[in-house]
C-alpha cells in the first residue's frame, strides 16, 4: 500500500474513459438489457438523455477499484455505502478518487470518503468505503 494512510490524505486518483465497447461488455456480463446503455435513439429521443448512460454500478465498481489499487495486498475492502446521484454519458472521462477520513492504528480499520466526478467537477457517485488492513509482517 502506497502511501500509508493518514487522516486527510488523498489517495491516487484514476481516470476512466467511458466508451461504447466497454459499456456493451459490462452490461452483457451482468445480463443487463436496459436500452439506455446501448440504444442511442431510445436513450436520447424516448428517455431524453444527452447520450448513452453509463451503468450506475460500473461507477460503483470504480469507487472500489481506486481504493483497492491503493491497498494492493495490504488489506481488503470490508464495506461501502454509495449512491448514484448524477449520470455519466458514454464519451466522457470521469475521475475516481478518495480521501482518508479515519484510521485506527490499533484495529487497522481505515475509512475513506470516495467519489467519481466528471470534467465539470460534479460528484456523480459519492460514497464511503471501509477497509481492513492486514497485520504487518
Amino acid at each position, binding site marked *: 500500500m502506497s502511501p500509508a494512510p493518514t487522516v486527510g490524505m488523498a489517495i491516487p486518483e484514476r481516470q*476512466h474513459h467511458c466508451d461504447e465497447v*466497454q459499456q456493451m*461488455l*459490462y452490461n*452483457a*456480463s*451482468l*445480463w*443487463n*438489457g*436496459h*436500452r*439506455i446503455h446501448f*440504444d442511442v435513439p*431510445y436513450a436520447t429521443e*424516448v*428517455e431524453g438523455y444527452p447520450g448513452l448512460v453509463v451503468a*450506475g*454500478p*460500473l461507477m*460503483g*465498481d*470504480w469507487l*472500489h*477499484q481506486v481504493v*483497492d*489499487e491503493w491497498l494492493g495486498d495490504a488489506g*481488503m*475492502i*470490508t*464495506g*461501502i*455505502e*454509495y*449512491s*448514484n*446521484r448524477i449520470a455519466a454519458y458514454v464519451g466522457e472521462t470521469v475521475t475516481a478518487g478518495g480521501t482518508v477520513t479515519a484510521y485506527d492504528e490499533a484495529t487497522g480499520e481505515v475509512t475513506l470518503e470516495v467519489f467519481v466526478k466528471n470534467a465539470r467537477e460534479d460528484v456523480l457517485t459519492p460514497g464511503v468505503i471501509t477497509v481492513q488492513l492486514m497485520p504487518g509482517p
Partner: protein
Amino acid sequence: MSGLLSEDVLSHIGQQSEPRREVVTRRDIRKYAIATDNRQAKYLDGDVAPPLFHLHLFWDVVPLNELSPDGVSIDSLLPRFPLEKAMAGGLDITYHKPIKPGDWLTATRTLTDIYEKAGRSGPLIFYEVVMEVRDDNNELVVTEKTTRILR
C-alpha cells in the same frame, strides 16, 4: 403523509425471493474484471473475484420475452407502486469473505421496507431490498442493502 401506500402494497414487506445458487468460474471473473477496466492481475487472471462481483453473479437471468420494452427485467419481489419514476438509489454493502473460482454461492433477497416521505416537489416512495449471499457452509459472504427512490 399523503397515504400513497395502501395496505396491499405494504403487505409485501418481508417477502423473500426463491434462493438462487450459482457457481463462480474463473472465466466469469475475468470477463467482469476486463469489462470494469480493472488492471490488477489477481482479478484479470480470475484467481479471486473483485468486490462487487456478486452483482454480476446474481443479476437476474431472464428470457428475452420477459423483459419490458426498455430492456429491463421486472423484479418479481416488488409490488406495483403508485409512483414509477425511479430516482437515484443507494447501496450499502458488507464484504465478509473473498469470492473465488469454484465457490457455490446462494443469494436470497428480501423486501425489508417500504415507506413514504415528502419531497420538495411531491411525495417520494422508498423501498429497501436486502440480499444475503452465503456459501455452502451457510457462512455470510456478502450482505447488500439497496435503497431505491420513486417519484
